[in-house]
């Protein structure tokens, strides 16, 4: 059999995956379950089959759904295969074949897109939105005007984080406008509801389009806002995406002088901050200036939190978290800092009983090191 005749259509993959297999070396799920369908290369094969043949099976749902969306594969791929985009399309296809279970439908359709309902349901947490005016003035001279994107989780579950972020922005001279945004849309895409996500994206884009800069303190929101151009395929979204910044990046560029932290700290880089926004080094640098900083081994490797992953794939989530916790313990730090509420929740449960605390960058910089409630 010649080389020529050995090439057939069956061997071709979407977006020119060369099947080199380098992604197997960086995928957190493959690391725990070294079987091809848990690898990016395998998932691309499955996604191609799904998108071409239109038949979905529970197996496909399980394998494709177990992707953390940590973006490590795309970063390692020498061929530049846009794995995230392909898997998003596959998730959409799966959604049309497998309707969501009731509990998912409830929070995805009836809770997440409706800030009012979230605030009502979580009013006992004293959501940030209820404690804020629509505009905040700078402390001292007005140097910037920014719009703050108040993400769902920080709004209702970690309002202190949002308040700390806003306080920091005021500190560096920002007039901060806090428009009534809705969910950024990321969870909906993760569960294959692209159209609903687009509705939310258009709404948010209309609200934020006139902003000079858009700052957020949730790494996932930030990364997803920056991917609006791909979601909406509009030039307006492209212009908008350039204005979005993570708060760590903004504060570093604004010249914030971090106060002394007074204990050994390390930093876990959320996937959506490091690979999602290319901001891992910048934010690490900001924290490094704040105190006795020790770098975290494998800082950029996923913690296994991935939004609601801990409930969808508890076993995998736990195993991936275990590795992260071992790395954290190895640093000897008493405090680990991060920039994403999903990571916060995941790290907190992993570090329970170790005496090591977790906090959000904004809280640490603001000098408030109380444990999260």
């Amino acid at each position, binding site marked *: 059999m*010649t080389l*020529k005749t*050995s090439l057939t259509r069956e061997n071709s993959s979407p977006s020119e995956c060369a099947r080199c297999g380098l992604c197997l070396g960086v995928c957190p799920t493959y690391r725990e379950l070294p079987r091809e369908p848990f690898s990016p290369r395998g998932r691309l094969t499955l996604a191609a089959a799904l998108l071409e043949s239109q038949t979905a099976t529970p197996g496909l749902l399980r394998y494709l759904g177990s992707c953390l969306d940590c973006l490590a594969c795309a970063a390692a791929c020498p061929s530049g295969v846009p794995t995230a985009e392909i898997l998003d399309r596959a998730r959409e296809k799966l959604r049309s074949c497998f309707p969501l279970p009731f509990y998912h439908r409830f929070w995805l359709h009836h809770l997440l897109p409706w800030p009012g309902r979230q605030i009502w349901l979580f009013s006992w947490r004293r959501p940030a939105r209820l404690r804020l005016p629509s505009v905040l003035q700078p402390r001292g001279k007005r140097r910037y005007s920014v719009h703050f994107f108040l993400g769902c989780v920080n709004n209702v579950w970690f309002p202190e984080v949002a308040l700390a972020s806003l306080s920091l922005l005021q500190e560096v001279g920002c007039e901060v406008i806090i428009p009534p945004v809705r969910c950024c849309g990321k969870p909906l895409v993760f569960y294959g509801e692209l159209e609903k996500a687009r509705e939310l994206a258009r709404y948010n884009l209309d609200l934020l389009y006139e902003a000079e800069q858009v700052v957020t303190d949730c790494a996932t929101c930030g990364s997803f806002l920056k991917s609006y151009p791909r979601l909406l395929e509009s030039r307006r979204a492209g212009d908008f995406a350039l204005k979005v910044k993570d708060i760590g990046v903004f504060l570093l560029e604004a010249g914030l002088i971090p106060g002394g932290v007074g204990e050994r700290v390390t930093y876990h880089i959320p996937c959506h901050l490091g690979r999602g926004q290319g901001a891992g080094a910048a934010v690490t640098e900001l924290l490094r200036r704040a105190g006795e900083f020790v770098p975290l081994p494998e800082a950029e490797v996923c913690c296994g939190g991935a939004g609601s992953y801990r409930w969808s794939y508890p076993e995998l989530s736990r195993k991936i978290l275990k590795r992260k916790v071992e790395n954290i313990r190895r640093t000897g730090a008493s405090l680990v800092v991060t920039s994403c509420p999903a990571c916060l929740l995941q790290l907190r449960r992993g570090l329970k009983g170790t005496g090591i605390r977790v906090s959000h960058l904004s809280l640490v910089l603001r000098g408030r090191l109380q444990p999260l409630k």
Partner: protein
Amino acid sequence: MKELERICGRGRVFTSAEELSCYSYDASLVPGHIPLAVVFPANAEQVSRVLALAAAEGVKVVPRGAGTGLAGGAVPLLPSLVLCFTEMNRILEIDLHNLTAVVEPGVVTGVFHEEVERRGLFYPPDPASAPSCTLGGNVATNAGGLRAVKYGVTRNYVLGIEAVLPGGTTVNLGGRTLKEVAGYNLAQLLTGSEGTLGVFTRLTLRLLPLPRARATILAGFKEPENAAVAVAEILGRGFLPAMMEFMDRSTVLAVEAYSPTGLPREIGAVLLIEVDGAPEAVASDMEGIARLLGGLGALEVRQAADPAAAEELKKARRAVLPALARLRPTVLLEDTTVPPHKLPEIVKAVRLLGEKYGIMTGTMGHAGEGNLHPYFLCNARDEEEMGRVEEAVSELMSIALELGGTVSGEHGIGYAKMPFLARRQPAEALELMKGIKRCFDPENILNPGKLFAL
């Protein structure tokens, strides 16, 4: 199927269509048959029972690690059972006194590197796929890597193999000592056998002490001839770098377009050299080599002694694959090895082949041992173009053989290079090989259709 599940446990067998579809390929272009099933044994006993079952049922078996081979060695050509070792991935022992390690075959090579280096030890074979590939796969293909000029290849580090033969017999081959002459060296026979003689359940590997220092030099030359002379001079003057990587003009241009490192445009060849050893020796070697290169008319010489600066220099080498992949969808990397002094000839020949067949080509690779990787940039879906590529590759093989080299330095024959094996090996040698295969595997159960037709 039920029998497999009984032996290994239900969770260790893949039978669904989607699962099986993921095991019909590896990293080569060789298309494969969907397997009958995939089984992930947990230990040697399960492996033995699975092979016994396969023999009893007359079912073919294809062993597999991570599936990163470039010659189709892990691709099923017939309906077969894929025996995947990725879940036998424990490092069982790292012996600091005796400088040995005992591992299961599914250990990822990169993970093994980290573990031994953490203990101040060194396992030199470093194929480019180290972040994903497995030690079992490395032994099956006698994997090479970038450090072979100084440290040799996987074969030089295989001391012993616990193997399971077709039929299910488990046998301990080789031993734990560096030196032994006690009958034929069967562990070395299995090394590079590409899954056709037996499978591995345990490997005893040799380790070295970790070199205390490393330094990197990047040198640019006008022509490949200059680079080849430099390689010869460096070795001739008594230096033995750990690595001497070569890139020709096409490669340099591609890399600069993708991720500029500021190399001057006149550069037609680049050597990336790494020396390792005691700090004083490394410093002295660096200086000596740099001076030597300057004396040979290198257009540019950059040195880096600290790890961060060295990483910067190595960026160019790491950018090669992505840079080439941006140009065309398919990067067909060949593996022809020639005596090192023939480097300029092969580089020129590859360029001429590209012109003759209308294909984008170039050459990079391990200059120290002459193991070069000519590449053909093409589109696997373009049948016409691939026909031309096939002819070009065939001609390349003839040229490499004429220059006194071989058809595969480290990727192996697998399925993709079978047509060339007969050109490389005399008929008598092939007959001996077939005899050995029949001796180990009379029913041709293990990885049938690979290496040679029986």
